[in-house]
């Protein structure tokens, strides 16, 4: 019996494809998410919009909260650790969470190095804004990717930018002859082996979700049409007027992302979406997407 293999780690993410993973901070929200049809929940202390608003250091959630959520729902439970904080990751693994998000949304614990994810049996998902970053994370052992977007803004523009960047770079790599791949790896600052794998396959070797700024059913469907395998929704649900209704609508729009009539139907009368932030009004040092190395 072999545990913690790449196939097993990447395989769970495969099972989540086409679905919505929702940020939750307590048992009640986790139940709403499960009831709405989420394929997994992400347990954290505060949703990104609140982290952005209140500042301070954002850390791994209280284990008691995570445990409560694990007991309350039957869908997989993911939890976030800080970038480079391998002890938070060890704690989450010991608790038996199903996936760890080494996340830029929390305050980084290490400004040079990420967690060596190969050393863990639990799989990791990591964020990326471009292909180079995505492949560096795969080199460290991530089993699932997500584009970062700009968390807690309710503004989908960065999610779009990052998804287009990655899919565009994958397409470009696929056209290169072998002798150009080493230079491509150098430009991307990515491990050569990962570059070769992507170039040969013409696609990423793991599932890639979209995250950071998705607030409406149409946002979710937009990301799916741009090539996302699924979506993470954080503040967009529980910072809106009617979380349960919106959660369900986003799930339906994600399943039927190519059906505008259905998206119109589920988008009707949802109440107010989260207010949202204009990216240019956020100072560069307050942009979360540039955390990660």
């Amino acid at each position, binding site marked *: 019996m072999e545990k913690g293999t790449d196939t*097993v780690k990447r395989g769970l993410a495969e099972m989540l494809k086409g679905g919505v993973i929702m940020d939750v901070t307590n048992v009640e929200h986790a139940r709403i998410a499960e009831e709405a049809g989420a394929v997994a929940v992400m347990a954290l202390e505060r949703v990104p919009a609140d982290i952005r608003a209140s500042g301070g250091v954002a850390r791994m959630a209280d284990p008691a909260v995570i445990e409560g959520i694990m007991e309350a729902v039957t869908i997989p439970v993911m939890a976030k650790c800080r970038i480079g904080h391998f002890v938070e990751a060890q704690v989450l693994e010991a608790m038996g969470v199903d996936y760890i998000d080494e996340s830029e949304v929390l305050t980084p614990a290490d400004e040079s190095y990420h967690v060596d994810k190969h050393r863990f049996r639990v799989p990791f998902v990591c964020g990326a804004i471009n292909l180079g970053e995505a492949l560096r994370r795969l080199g460290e052992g991530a089993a699932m990717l997500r584009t970062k977007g700009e968390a807690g803004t309710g503004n989908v523009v960065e999610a779009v930018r990052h998804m287009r960047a990655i899919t565009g770079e994958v397409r470009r790599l696929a056209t290169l002859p072998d002798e150009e791949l080493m230079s491509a790896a150098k430009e991307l600052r990515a491990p050569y082996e990962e570059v070769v794998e992507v170039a040969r396959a013409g696609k990423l070797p793991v599932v890639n979700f979209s995250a950071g700024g998705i607030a409406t059913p149409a946002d979710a469907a937009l990301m799916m049409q741009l090539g996302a395998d699924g979506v993470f929704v954080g503040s967009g649900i529980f910072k809106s007027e009617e979380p349960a209704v919106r959660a369900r609508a986003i799930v339906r729009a994600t399943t039927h992302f190519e059906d505008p009539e259905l998206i119109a139907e589920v988008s009707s009368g949802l109440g107010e979406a989260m207010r949202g932030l204009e990216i240019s009004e956020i100072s560069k040092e307050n942009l979360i997407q540039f955390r990660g190395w």
Partner: protein
Amino acid sequence: MSEHLAMIEECGARGVEVKRPSGLDGVHGLIIPGGESTTIGKLIDEYKFESALLELGASGVPVFGTCAGLIVMAARVEGRHGPGLRLADVGVRRNAFGRQVDSFEEDIVVRGIEDEGRPFRAVFIRAPVIEEAGAGVEVMARFGEGVVMAREDNYLLSAFHPELTGDGRIHDYFLRMVRESIGGIGTRRSIKRDSEV
């Protein structure tokens, strides 16, 4: 699910995604894939798949449930669970091997597939197990105390994910069931559809 589709095409049949009950019209076989059984159960309710799926099964069309698909098809499910289809006469336990950190791969022997003496690399992800089975159920593979693959007439059940390995023997086996059910063994191109319910 896209892995199932790729495997089906590799085995020489055509596969399509089914996202609504109307998509089931005219299919010669159906795979209910892995995923989260809780989520799949909700989607079956939401899109009113239940009666169409029950009809399809009763009409003799082969249905293959893998992992969560097995749970959805089982007559009896231990622990908390929403309404299932109760198609196959088996009792299953969800997450029988534990959470994701305990997910694993193992070589197992699957009876009835081509070259059955050669082990099949089975990938178990938060997998269920078949704890008990009715008299009409044929056990195809065991792991430890439990049954991990079985067949009952036109229903094929596996606790693991045959689509995640490069080995197409189980999909081949299922397509044989499909070809037998439509009569023209090997002569007709079977349209095999895959469900995302």
